[in-house]
């Protein structure tokens, strides 16, 4: 009876294989032989009952839903369903890879040790299969591994342990030619109950992809953290440096765009990840030592000798680790101080402005002026004018409030003046900008008297626009924001020239078109400090002073940095804002604005010839370069045929 049923299942499975996978006879014969060799084992699952529905006719994304792992006689069969983005079944997936690994719980291998993945196997199906593959022809698939996990890769299968199966499909196409996007899906299970008793969910790939774009490895096959860890563990990789945590830590040691001390840049506090706080709660010499590379724990170099991980947490408890490796203290200190410019107006070539200092935690103003507050290490205001021409000078004027007696003021609002501004042609109808930056003396989470504390906390810089008569919100065009920059650099954590971190509106007070390019430079944009050119060439790795820049994302994804305007259009769109000035050279020549920007990346001769043909001016007179001859937007403008927003791989 059982035999008959089994025979039916096998023959139906074979029939389906014939229909779906369109195998050549030889391959089919091999399959039959293989199935026959499994005779007597009734572990083959039946046809999952769910009706398939009409097959997908368009595939932009694949969803793999793993329904169950059937575990019989130590051999796992995974039953899953593949659909497209609208949940229509995808039939006829031609190939797949199946990974299997086992997780040992935290502390299992020794007190203090982190939980640890153990690789079992990687099996594939394409023209032939390591195990048994069935396409149920309705979007449902089954795969039975080639044998029992126990003993594979010399790892003992442990009943009750958390197990993982990863399915990778895509990168090829359906028999009808439809492309299949590469998709990884993992499934954690255990053999003695429904839910795994423990997990190791530390990081989600979307966190990596805030800075990287669509990160994937090994020929783009693997694109999920959950996939990586099944192989990058001590039981699979021969080099300990390739175990996932040390490997990833090590790869980010140089060129990391934020302070390395902030573990939560990657280990974000995401409560859907059950072990998201492991970075603070499970310190190990493997994880910590991969950044603290000057320490040899067993021999006691750089740290008192520790032969294993059992003691780490005795000193480095989670509170300690969090205070040393996150922004928590900084946030707490900054929460006690706010500096804002509350009024400003032009007075001849001076700007009169007033500053209000307050404590947001208590909602009270600091009654004293900055020169009398003992916790202020540095508080400066910079000023520049001429928004209409993207500022009149590269030398913004500034004063240090901590060293300046205010002109007047009381009870938290004090008045100051910055003189010697360079005015534009029509100052009454033009605007200027004030930028504020500084450092506070602090002790752990509290503000401290600078006489008592050596440690400081850097303020988040800010900027404020003003007209001839008052403050104004509308100032220089907004191209990038602190938020878009922060997707890699953290929330205003990138400091230049000491404490300048307002990448959105502060840098431009000096890094403006008044900066000049080197007329002899091969890539002129890479030789000027004008903000747009600086930012483009710096990230592209084309500046000599930053040779090690290795941009982690796709450099053509303008949206990684550019924000959208009020209409929702990316600020990389053409035509350019009228205020954008041509690129100035140190020999007195100019390149027209759009050509200067595009040629920062597109700098080969044919690209430049194309730009010249379409009205671009390279190293011409200022009059020519500003004559408006560029017709770039006709074809590359917003919604035009080859809109820059379409031809770049923008996500």
């Amino acid at each position: 009876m059982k035999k008959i049923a089994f025979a039916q299942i096998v023959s139906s499975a074979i029939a389906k294989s014939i229909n779906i996978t369109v195998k050549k006879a030889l391959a089919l014969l091999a399959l039959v032989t293989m199935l026959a060799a499994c005779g007597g084992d009734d572990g083959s699952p039946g046809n999952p009952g769910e009706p398939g529905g009409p097959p997908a006719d368009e595939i932009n994304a694949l969803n793999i839903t793993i329904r169950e792992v059937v575990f019989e006689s130590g051999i796992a069969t995974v039953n899953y369903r593949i659909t497209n983005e609208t949940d229509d079944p995808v039939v006829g997936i031609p190939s797949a890879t199946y990974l299997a690994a086992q997780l040992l719980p935290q502390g299992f291998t020794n007190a203090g040790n982190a939980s640890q993945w153990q690789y079992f196997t990687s099996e594939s199906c394409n023209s032939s299969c390591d195990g048994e593959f069935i396409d149920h022809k309705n979007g449902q698939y089954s795969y039975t591994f080639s044998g029992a996990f126990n003993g594979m890769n010399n790892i003992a299968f442990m009943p009750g342990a958390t197990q993982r199966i990863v399915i990778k499909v895509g990168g090829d196409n359906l028999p009808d030619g439809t492309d299949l996007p590469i998709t990884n899906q993992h499934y954690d299970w255990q053999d003695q109950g429904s839910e795994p008793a423990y997990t190791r969910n530390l990081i989600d790939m979307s966190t990596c992809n805030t800075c990287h774009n669509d990160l994937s490895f090994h020929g783009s096959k693997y694109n999920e953290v959950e996939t990586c860890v099944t192989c990058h563990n001590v039981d699979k990789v021969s080099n300990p440096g390739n175990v996932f945590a040390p490997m990833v830590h090590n790869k980010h040691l140089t060129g990391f765009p934020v302070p390395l001390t902030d573990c939560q840049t990657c280990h974000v506090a995401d409560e859907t990840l059950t072990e998201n706080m492991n970075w603070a709660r499970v310190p190990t010499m493997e994880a910590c030592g991969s950044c603290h590379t000057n320490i040899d724990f067993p021999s006691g170099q750089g740290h008192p000798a520790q032969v294993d991980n059992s003691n780490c947490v005795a000193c480095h408890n989670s509170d300690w680790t969090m205070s040393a490796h996150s922004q928590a203290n900084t946030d707490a200190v900054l929460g006690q101080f706010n500096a804002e410019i509350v009024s400003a107006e032009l007075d001849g070539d001076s700007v009169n402005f007033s500053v209000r200092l307050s404590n947001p935690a208590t909602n009270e103003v600091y009654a004293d002026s900055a020169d009398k507050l003992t916790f202020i290490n540095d508080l400066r205001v910079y000023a520049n004018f001429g928004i209409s021409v993207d500022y009149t000078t590269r030398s913004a004027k500034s004063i240090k409030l901590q060293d300046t007696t205010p002109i007047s003021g009381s009870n938290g609002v004090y008045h100051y003046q910055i003189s010697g501004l360079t005015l534009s042609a029509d100052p009454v109808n033009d605007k200027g900008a004030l930028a504020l930056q500084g450092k506070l003396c602090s002790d752990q989470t509290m503000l401290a008297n600078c006489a008592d504390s050596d440690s400081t906390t850097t303020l988040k810089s800010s900027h404020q626009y003003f007209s001839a008569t008052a403050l104004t919100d509308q100032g220089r065009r907004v191209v990038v924001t602190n938020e878009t920059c922060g997707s890699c650099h953290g929330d205003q954590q990138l400091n230049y020239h000491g404490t300048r971190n307002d990448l959105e509106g502060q840098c431009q007070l000096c890094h403006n078109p008044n900066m000049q390019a080197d007329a002899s430079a091969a890539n002129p944009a890479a030789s000027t400090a004008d903000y747009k050119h600086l930012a483009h060439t710096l990230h592209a790795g084309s500046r000599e002073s930053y040779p090690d820049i290795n941009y982690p994302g796709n450099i053509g994804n303008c949206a990684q940095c550019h924000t959208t305007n009020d209409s929702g259009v990316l600020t990389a769109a053409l035509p350019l804002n009228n205020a954008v000035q041509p690129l100035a050279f140190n020999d007195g020549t100019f390149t027209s604005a759009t050509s200067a920007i595009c040629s920062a990346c597109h700098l080969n001769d044919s690209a430049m010839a194309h730009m010249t043909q379409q009205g671009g001016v390279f190293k011409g007179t200022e009059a020519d370069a500003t004559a408006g001859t560029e017709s770039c937007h006709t074809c590359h403008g917003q919604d035009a045929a080859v809109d820059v927003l379409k031809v770049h791989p923008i996500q």
Partner: protein
Amino acid sequence: MFVHKKNTTQLTMLALAISASVSPVFAEGYGLQNANREKANTSKWECKRCVIETGFNGSVGVGAAYNDIDDIHFANASGTDSDGLVGHLDADLNNKSDSGYQTTFVANKLGYDIGSARLETGRIGQYKIGIGYRGLAHYNTNNALTPYSSSGDNLYLPSNWQTGAVTSQMPTLYDDARNVELKTQRDRYLLDAVYKGSFYQADINYQHEKRQGKRTFSGNFLTNSAMLAQPIDDTTDEFGAKIYFNGKGWLIGIDSSFSQYSNDHNSMIWQNAFTPTFGAAYRGQSAVAPDNKAYRVGANAQLSGNGHQVLMYLGVASFTQDDAFLPATVNGPSPALPKASLDGKVDTTDMKLKYNSRVLRGLNIRASYDYSDKDNKTAINPYPQVITDSYYAGTANNPEYDRTKQQVKLAAKYRFNREIYLDAGYQYDHNDYSDLDRDRLRQNGVFAKVNYKISSDWSTWLKAEFSDRTGSAYNPITTTNSQSNPYLRKSYLADRERQQYQLNVSYSSATALSASANVRVSSDDYDDTLVGLTQVDTHGYDISASYLLSDDIIINAYLNQDWRDSDQAGSSNFGLPNWYVNTDEKSTLVGAGIDYRHLLDKKLDLGLEYSYSDGQSDTEVTQGLSSPYGDYFSEKHNINAFAKYQLDEKIALRLDWIFENYQDSDWLNQGLALDAIPNVLIFGDMSSDYNAHYVGFTFSYEL
């Protein structure tokens, strides 16, 4: 700083210990039973057939024995840990004059660690003065190995000791390690007097106890630790006085006591066996139990009549210690302490009110109210925290841990007939705390017990109890070094439902056989606990019987088994539970004995007792994978036999034989070498496994 916290704790613990040892309020004189006896006309109870002999009589004995001490644990059975030949004296002397004066001297195993002697003189029914000595000893192990030797407050390493970062890097460890005995010996000297007047009685007593020995101590330096044999040398003096008056239907009394604890050690100082982790931590210093004092005064009153009885008690006690603080650290400059000494003071107030009444024929009711308050009056100050003599970690205030307990009980007992009665009641407990995760606990409980006398020989009872504990909001305290898991509920503060059932059957008849059996089961359900102790189930039974085979032969046997099964849930990611612990504990006690007297023409008495005891605990941790802990058990076979032969009318020879087969093991140290744990210098394997004999002869002479 840990040592200062420890001071407070130790005061409290010691104070509790003292209070427990000196304040058994109802232990003697004021108890219900005693009080009733006072009212009774005891002259009618006089033993008409007893012949009171006057003059000098008694016996003295001298004994010699062979004591087989390889493992000092056997001394718990034999009474002395001297190996080989040991001797002792016994005496039971009595001199009584016609005028009623009586003097007695009793000595038992004098010469052994557990020897005792007491001399008493007085006039029967009038006064009595006693002087006595009693030795008490507890022997843990002599299998512990340590490189340290002690002198005064100091524990030294050999002069050529070479430190290591981990235990395996201490090159002379095995050469320097010596066995150390972990045991305590207490010598207790007593002096007491009682005087009885016509309507009053006065008692005074004084006890001086000297304690010596060694116990395990953990000497920590940050992440390194050494197991140390801490010397114990301390004395406790206790003085008690009470007087009470009684008349028909009333009794009042005052009871007071004073105790003083004095530690010969001022601190404990040990060398660091490890290479210092930070700085120059070459030696550590820890506070020891501080000298302290306690006094207590209590007043009692009891009124009874017409089937009503009222009992009242009010007591106050105070516990103080003011030993000078040690510096916060001996390694590097010590942060300033807020005070030179704790000046610790804890006051307690206890009140009890009880009422009993026979309302109707067959119906008794009783009600009681208990109040107990502990008020820590020690000043709260910020004390510097120097983590195990290594680094300064800010300050912490000494917590108060005040508490007030109140308890109300109402119960009634109704006798349906001569065979059956029902006893049922309600109990409410109300506790208020400070500095704990919960400010208040409330518990409601009910019980019922049915007694049924089946026949003149058979009787049985069944008792059932149920209680439900809950309390105020659970707010994990924030004063601890590391935060608690928000789902953790500490078992002593957690909501709990408790059920207990007990069934007892006993047989006793005029014939030779008497027997009883008892079965019990209980369940504690911590119904609101996600992380912590979640469930404790126990069950057990006792069976015992004795049978009088003849006038000269009696045999007895007993069997007792208990099981305890507890479940805990834990979390490795500071959230909901993801690991679980099950602990199964089991104890068995079985024994049998025979006493055969008056053999060989009434010259020979024989006795033989055998007992077997076995306790074990099995713990299994499960987080998907199950990991059982190792062995944790003790198992003992014990034979205790004697033969006493009357050589002539005055002289008797007694032979005692004790045999013990004993084994114990604890996975914490089972099979571990001294350097098995890199950062803990341990005593090694402290398991016991021995067969030991004690064979002794005693000559006794009747005076």
